[in-house]
Structures are given as C-alpha cells and as structure tokens.
C-alpha cells in the first residue's frame, strides 16, 4: 500500500498525485514509468513518473481520467492509499546535449514529457516546449515547464489561449523561422505523435515518441504491449517506452489500442452504476 500525500486536480479530469514510494523516488530516471492497481481486483495500469522527490520519498504522477481505472484513481484523495505500485519500469530516456531540443506535449502527454524536458535542460540543451491542449484549461503544467525550459509555447485548438492551432503547426512555424532544431520529443495522443513524425521527417530531425500500448505485467512476460518498430516486434514495457518516431508503425499501435474498446465501455458503465448506487446508498443513510 502506498500513501497519497497530495492529490489535486490540474484541469477537469486531470489529477496530480504525490505518492510515497521511497525506493522508486530514489531510483527512477526520466522516461520511466510505474504500474499500479487501485484495489485488489483492479487492473494494472502504466503511468509515467512525472517527477520525484528523494528527500520526502515521493513520486508524482499525473493522470487523465479516460476509463474505469483512471477514474477510480482520480476519486482518491490526499491521505488515502493505492493498493500497490511497482517500478521504475522501462528504459530511461536517452539524454544527451543535442543542442536545441523541442519537447511537445499534447494533453496529459505534457506530464509525460515533463521529466524528459527537465533532463534535457539539465544536460545543457536549449529546450523549447510546446504545450498543446484542445482549449485553455487543458494546457497543462505551463508554470512547471517555464521553470525548466528556455521557451514555452502554449497552443490551443480553439484559440482560447496561446497559439491558435495544433502543436504540429507551431513546430512547423519554428522550423520555418529558421531555428535549427536538433531533437524533438513528442508525447500525446497517437495521431499527434504520428503527425509530429511527419513534420520532422523531411528535415531529418531526430524525433522520439513515447508509446502507450496496453500493458499487463510491464516486465516483458506477457508480450501484450508489443508494437512494430523498424518492421520488428518490440515489447514496449522493456524495450521502450521511447522509440524513434520515424520507425514506429503508428497504424498498428492505434488498432491494437482498440482491442478492448467494447470491454472498456462495459467496465465504465459497470463502474458508473456502482458509483451511482453507492452515492444513492449514502443519500439513503443520510
């Protein structure tokens, strides 16, 4: 059991948790993740370690409520416990001084990109961060990014804040302005990562994406997280999660992530009903 020492919403449905996990806090490197279960019958879900604090032995995760488990998680409050948590899993990001590095985060992807952006800065890069959101309140971690990056550009699809347009358009604008970009890190929804890869490919800019297949064990035991990179099968949990964007088969990744679409819906409805029933019972008790 791991105690939640801080839980707060950053945006609707997006919640930050600081959780006691001293060993992981000590060990983890940028790019690695944990797997947790919310309760004894819970699913094992992977979440990136957004940050850590060795002094108080906590790690930070930032969670977007998209289905049953992430919504259950987002119902937890400060002082409550997580059933269990394992990590740090996966390979750490390859951090080098590339020169100028652009970190692109879409939605909760910004949280996943944050630790690597920070590490890139610490390695001496000039780091430009593009933070994308559909609308203003979904632009995440702007202050945190400003603290560790040289330039930060929020973008919104609806133009309610920052640059009006997609993160890829902002990236193209930077390239067109003649900025020499040596490295791009793109993390977010699969179509966004695929689009970034398209933009950087003609310029030969080294581009890395973090893949988010469905996982079970996270140790290379089940093969459920397999993806196709450079025409070869990889196990994302141990060979990744970061890969060369120009070699990833995004099409197959997209299809594989739809594997449990139907079950996810059932699970969610089951959860909503339970949730409603519990709330009704609570009301009845009152």
């Amino acid at each position, binding site marked *: 059991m791991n105690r939640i020492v801080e839980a707060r919403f950053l945006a609707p449905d997006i919640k930050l948790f600081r959780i006691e996990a001293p*060993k*992981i806090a000590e*060990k983890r490197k940028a790019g690695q993740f944990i797997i947790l*279960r919310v309760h004894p*019958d*819970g*699913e*094992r879900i992977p979440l990136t370690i957004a940050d850590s604090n060795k002094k108080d032995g906590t790690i930070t995760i930032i969670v977007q409520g998209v289905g*049953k*488990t992430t919504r259950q998680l987002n119902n937890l409050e400060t002082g409550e416990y997580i*059933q*269990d*948590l*394992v*990590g*740090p*899993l996966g390979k750490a990001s390859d951090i080098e001084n590339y020169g100028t590095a652009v970190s692109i985060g879409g939605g909760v992807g910004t949280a996943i990109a944050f630790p690597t952006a920070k590490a890139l800065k610490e390695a001496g890069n000039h780091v430009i961060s593009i933070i994308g959101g559909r609308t203003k309140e979904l632009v995440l971690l702007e202050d945190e990014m400003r603290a560790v990056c040289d330039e930060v550009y929020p973008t919104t699809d609806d133009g309610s804040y920052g640059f009006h347009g997609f993160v890829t358009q902002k990236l193209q604008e930077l390239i067109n302005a003649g900025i020499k970009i040596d490295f791009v890190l793109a993390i977010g929804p699969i179509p966004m990562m695929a689009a970034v890869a398209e933009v950087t490919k003609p310029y030969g800019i080294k581009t890395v994406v973090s893949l988010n297949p469905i996982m*079970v*064990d996270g*140790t*290379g*035991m*089940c*093969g*459920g997280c*397999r*993806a*196709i990179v450079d025409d070869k*099968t990889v196990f994302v949990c*141990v060979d990744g999660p970061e890969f060369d964007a120009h070699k990833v088969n995004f099409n*197959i990744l997209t*299809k*594989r992530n*739809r*594997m*449990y679409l*139907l*079950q*996810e819906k*059932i*699970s969610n409805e*089951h959860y909503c009903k339970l949730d409603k029933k519990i709330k009704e019972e609570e009301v009845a008790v009152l």
Partner: protein
Amino acid sequence: MADITPKERMAIKRHHMIEQDADVRNKNFSEVNLGYSVELAQEEALRCIQCKKPLCIDGCPVMINIPAFIKKIEEGDFKAAAAILKKDNALPAVCGRVCPQEEQCEKVCTVGKKNAPVAIGYLERFAADWERNNLGIQLAEKKPPSGKKIAIVGGGPAGLSCAGDLNQMGHDVTVFEALHDIGGVLIYGIPEFRLPKAIVKAEVEGLKKMGVEFKTNSVIGLTDTIDELLQEYDAIFIGVGAGLPYFLNIPGEQLNGVYSSNEYLTRVNLMKAYDFPRSDTPMFNIEGKQVAVFGGGNTAMDAVRTSLRLGASRAMIIYRRTEAEMPARIEEVKHAKEEGVEFMLLAGPLEFKGTDDGWLKSVTIQKMELGEPDASGRRRPVPIEGAIEEIPIEVAVIAIGNGSNPIISKTTPDLNVNKWGNILVDDNSMKSSKKGVFAGGDIVTGGATVILAMGAGRKAAKAIDEYVRNKESW
C-alpha cells in the same frame, strides 16, 4: 489388512479419481479432479507392493520415500504420510496435481509393468490435502537463528522451496517478487480448474508464519539490482523462471485477438478476467468465438481448456507433430478431449489474416506428414505440398514456450548466461559465476517442471547454507 499377499495387491484395479462431469466442468473454473475419499485412498494404497528396491523413488526428481508414505496411508496415519512427503517436497499438494507422473515416479512403478501403476500422484495429493484440511499447514521445526540474511529473487516453486528450506536452517529469508502476488506460474499460468489458488496461498501463508518475508512488486534489476542486494544480503538465490514468451514470427501476429499464452492465462488467472466486469481487467470476449491454440504442452492445454470455459464455440489445438510427441501430461490431453477440444495434428501455421481494422479472422495452416527419422530418431514433420487450409478463427493463443527474461542479466554483467539467456550454474552447488549468487529452476534449465524447479531450489538451499556458514569457498 496386513495379511494381503502381493499377488492380491497386484490384482486390485487402479482407482479413478472422482472428477466433475466433462460437460459440466467445461463451463466452470472449479477444480476438475475432486480427489480421493479416505476409502478410495486406502484401497489404492493397498496396490503398492512395498518393493524391496522401490524404482519409483528413483523416478521422482526429489526422491520422495514413496513406499513409506503410501504405507502410512494404508495404515490410516495420514498425518505421518504427509510428514514423509514434506521431508523431500515442500509443495506436495501442488506436485500431486501437476507432476507429469507418467514420465516420473509412476513410469517405473513395478506394478505398472503388468497393470496400471500405483496412483502415486493421487495419493500424494490426498495426503497433502488431508493435512491441510484437517490440521492446517504444519510448521516445520526451525534451527536457531544463524544471523545470515538471504534474498530469494522470484516467488515461483524454485524460490519458495529454497526459501522454506533456508528458513528452517535458521536463516533470515526475504523473497522478492515482481508481480503483486506470490506463486509464479502456479498462480498466473496454471488455471484454477487444475490447481486451486487457495492451495498455493495456504503454502505461502505457512512460509509467512515460519518467518519468511515477502516483498511483492519488486522487479529485481530495476527496483533493486543484484549488486545492491548483495550489499545487504549474505547470499542470493535467483529463481525468476522462464518468462519471455516466444511468438511464431509469422505475418499477422500483431492482429487483435492474437495472444501469447502468458498474456492469455495471466489475464484470466492472476487478473481474474473471467470475473469481468466485477474484476477490472478485460479479456477479449471469447463467447461464441473460434479459438486456436498453437502448441502441445501443458500451457497449450491450459489455454485451450480455458477458452472452452470462457464460452468458445470451437476450441482447437493446432500442433506440428503427433499426439505421441505432445509434451503435455497425458491426463491434460485426456481431459481436454473429454471437454470437447479439437485436435488438429501435423499442422503448422503460416499466416494470420485479419480485417482491415486489425481484427484476426483466420489462420492459414500447412498440413504435414511424418518424414524420415532425424538424428534424435524422431520422425520429423514435413510439409505436404499444396495441403494448405484456411481456418476461420477470432482468437489465437501462441503456446510454443518461453525464453529467459533479460532484466537481471542485462543489469548484472558479471553473471554468466548462455546464448539463450539461461543463467550458467554448477550442477551440484547451483553456484553462478558471481560470488554469493545461486540460481535454479526454469531460469537455468529453460521451461521444465514444478518438481524440477523445486528440487533445484532445495539443492541451492543446501549449498547456500554451507556457503554462508563458512564464506571462503566459491
């Protein structure tokens, strides 16, 4: 009963185990075999002629004193029978259920020369179950504390037996397990209908009561490295199993509906997907689907029988060779057939085909025939030209074996492994190339059996005991 002659003993027919009816059990996850009653067990025990030279003992990898424990059953002293088993086998209730007896103890049983062999496995299971149900797990005696600390990496049968023995020898033992629960393949692989989780749980509880400490959610190599553990512990035993699934490497393996047996069985067993949506982990909806399982071992049988229980309309084993070469226990193949599994033998997959949006819809099969015997004397399957068939399926499970997981070897460069990643050890002492580090079980041998893994754990425990007590030797 003492006046019964050997001839009369040999004339008694082997007693069947009571089992759930095939048409009932293929729809539930409860155990198939229901065990012997006291009467049946005692009657079966009568069949053992108490050989002067009991070949059965040599057939058992851990050399259980088989005639002695069977004698105790005959006499009705089940507690003593269980105690004899426990001397050489830390998990008799498990081995009685899953050992390939027909290849080991029962293969060489004297009675088996003319008749069916004594049902050693069923009797072992009976004695162990009797003890657990009537007396609870009996705690062994413990030597005075040695002050030595030992880390066991992996909570499968190899690790558990090593931990149990070292604990009895007076050492302070901690088991590190990557998953959130203890038991290895016994809990994530072998299904409930063959090995109820409660049995493994009871054994683990016994170890806990004896003072063995368990640290789940610890992936050694990542959470801690072997070198870090060596700073805190006097010795380490690595029993991490063979947990890296092989795929067929044919086109279409990335389609939705294609699983490794590890993933398939882990979802259903460890993550309880059969109880979805009460339990959160989803499983592809198998109901009414056609399922093909590739392979011929226990894992393949477990996966195909699981499919039936999840409601498959058609559940097939597709295997390259013939039934004679199938590595699965005979009983599993028999049970599978009774439950309605189809066997497609001498057939190898060529390609999976799918729909445009990525769902599996068929497999193309190459039919084979037996050719000339190869170097091993086995007749090799060779493709029959043009005999290619496309079979509609929505789910495929690949159960063709496991390699070794590289997480530990990658983070422990001075630990020698062979080209398949198996840790190299001295056969007698189970010592690896790295001082203080021992290994055993599937990570050393490649996928084998529960009893061999346990035997390796015990052997290592002995060597570790010697090593930590007078550390100079390596």
